[in-house]
């Protein structure tokens, strides 16, 4: 982590750059969702809008974690702690995806 005055001064530039990227990413998310010209896949909301929206959000979240939360140069213990939470969420997401194989999800029952 930046600790010396020189390092901190240098890091502030990267904070501003990331801020700009986050603003742009937000605008892009909205444009992709609302402008027909940027709509991919079917007309209106569909799987591709979902994938693209979440992809942009993931990039933005990664930048926040990596730069603002200083995960770009942290101690090993922090990666283990935060990583365990992320693994849990991924497992939960996988369980959600597995719900598709539940027989109750069969369209016959709709």
């Amino acid at each position, binding site marked *: 982590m930046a600790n010396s005055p020189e390092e*901190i001064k240098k890091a502030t530039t990267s904070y501003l750059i990331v801020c700009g990227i986050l603003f742009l990413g937000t605008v892009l998310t909205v444009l992709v969702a609302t402008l027909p010209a940027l709509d991919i896949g079917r*007309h*209106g*909301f569909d799987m591709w809008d979902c994938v693209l*929206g979440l992809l942009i959000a993931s990039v933005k979240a990664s930048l926040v974690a990596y730069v603002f*939360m200083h995960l770009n140069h942290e101690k090993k213990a922090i990666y283990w702690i935060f990583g365990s939470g*992320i693994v849990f969420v991924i497992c939960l997401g996988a*369980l959600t995806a597995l*719900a598709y194989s539940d027989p109750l999800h069969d369209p016959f029952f709709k």
Partner: protein
Amino acid sequence: MEIPYIVTPRKDTGLFNSKIAIWLFLASEVMLFGGFFSAYVFLRIGADYPWPERTLPVLPGLINTFVLIGSSVTVVFAWASLKLRQWRRFQIFMGITVACAAIFMVLKGIEYNVKLHHQAVRLKDYTVIEGHLGYEKEDGVEVKDYKGHKIEENQILIEASKLTFSTVRFHKPWVESLMGQAAHHNAEITLTEDIKAITEIGGKEEVIAKAGDKLSPGLLSRIQKAHLAARKSNSVHRTAALREEWKIAKNDSPELKGWQLAGAVSVDPAALAPKLISEISTVGFTVNPPVEFMFRPRDVQEGATQSRLRDDTVIEGKLLESPMIFHHVDAIDFQHLAMKAEQKGIDPISAIDASWLVQNSPFAREAWEWHKGEVAKLEAELLKDYGTDKKGNPKREPTHKDRYRIGWKELVKKVESEGRPKLSGTASLAEEFVGPNYAARGDETFPHFSVPREQIGFASKFTPSWNTYYAIYFTMTGLHGLHVIGGAIVLGYYLFCGKKMYLANPEWLANRVEVGGLFWHFVDLVWIFVFPVLYLM
């Protein structure tokens, strides 16, 4: 006592303790919000109604995203200022961060307020009407209920001649409301007949309340007291008698087990009767002359001749026409109706044409016909722009929402296409925050409409009870909002109370701000996902 490792790092972890603690906390927070996102996906996949996609106003959400991202930068600058020992600069950046939190919560408050005052009703044929209700008026003045609140024109009206209260469950404010309504109509609510009761064991029956006594919470409380005392005394004697019978049965047949004896054990009512005193579980009152009472729909289960309040008060009398009156209808949604029709193999357009609303409201009929034309135009545009696939089917088609929902913007477009002047840019922008401007747009855009009670399937404001979308929306944004408030309090504490700590040990304050900042970044990180998921998908 000195707390170790709050400034210098521990040798084994290389970190100061509070940093380890905040990351453990953030890991648990990741799991908490991960659980909610997972629940969102489940609810959306399993929804048995058309999911209200892209239903929230994007602009407030977008501004809030900018505000939170901006505050993430200022909080990290505040930390950097402390590291550089620049107190004044720290104050400025931390002040901006706390101000951003306040802006975020104000915008969120506006958004919630709009939702909590926006009414929706699903008719029995699954048509959904949205808008704002009017308020009950008398001589041009808005009437207030017993709590002093304005009364929405969504009341159940019953011309009651008799009221029967449960002496155990009666709700005092409702009793007072009934008394007030009766007095307003110059009517009296009086006890129908004498309440006679034996109040002592072996005593004689006596009158504890006389026919003609006026209804009051005090009278009901007096009867309730007598009833509860009787119930307590009687239960003691009933239990004692049963225990005695049980002993006898057990002595007579010691070889039998309890469950085998159960059928043979019974208390002789005639023998027990002298030991019992009178229980008065209900008490009847006459309304003279019969009065038109108003009840909130959630408080009453209405019937043609007999209705029941949630506190078990039975109201005998004729159910009157009790329509739900929209002063402004701002959306008509046939998506659910169309979905149900498709499930039954019925053409959705025919089903909508035959729906109660289209059949009974000239406004709805006209709007629906206009909307069908708009959908046809959109189909033609998409076909022109994107063409067809190999099978000859259009590559892009209007969505279910495009086809079957007439939102407020469509209603505005319709009247503007008919020549009604447009609103100014500022007024239109304000609509993006707080919804349609009924006063400026006028009744021809958002008309009055009366929904007969018998047509109503379910009605609610846009609260968690309306559907699972709003349930998860309020849960996730509410929890996130609490995090914003909590974070702002902590950061505000550093801002306003941190000077002493800064003078004593600036590195300690810098570490604490770093920890608070990490939490703040996490709050931003969660919103980065909440915004697209709830507002744009």
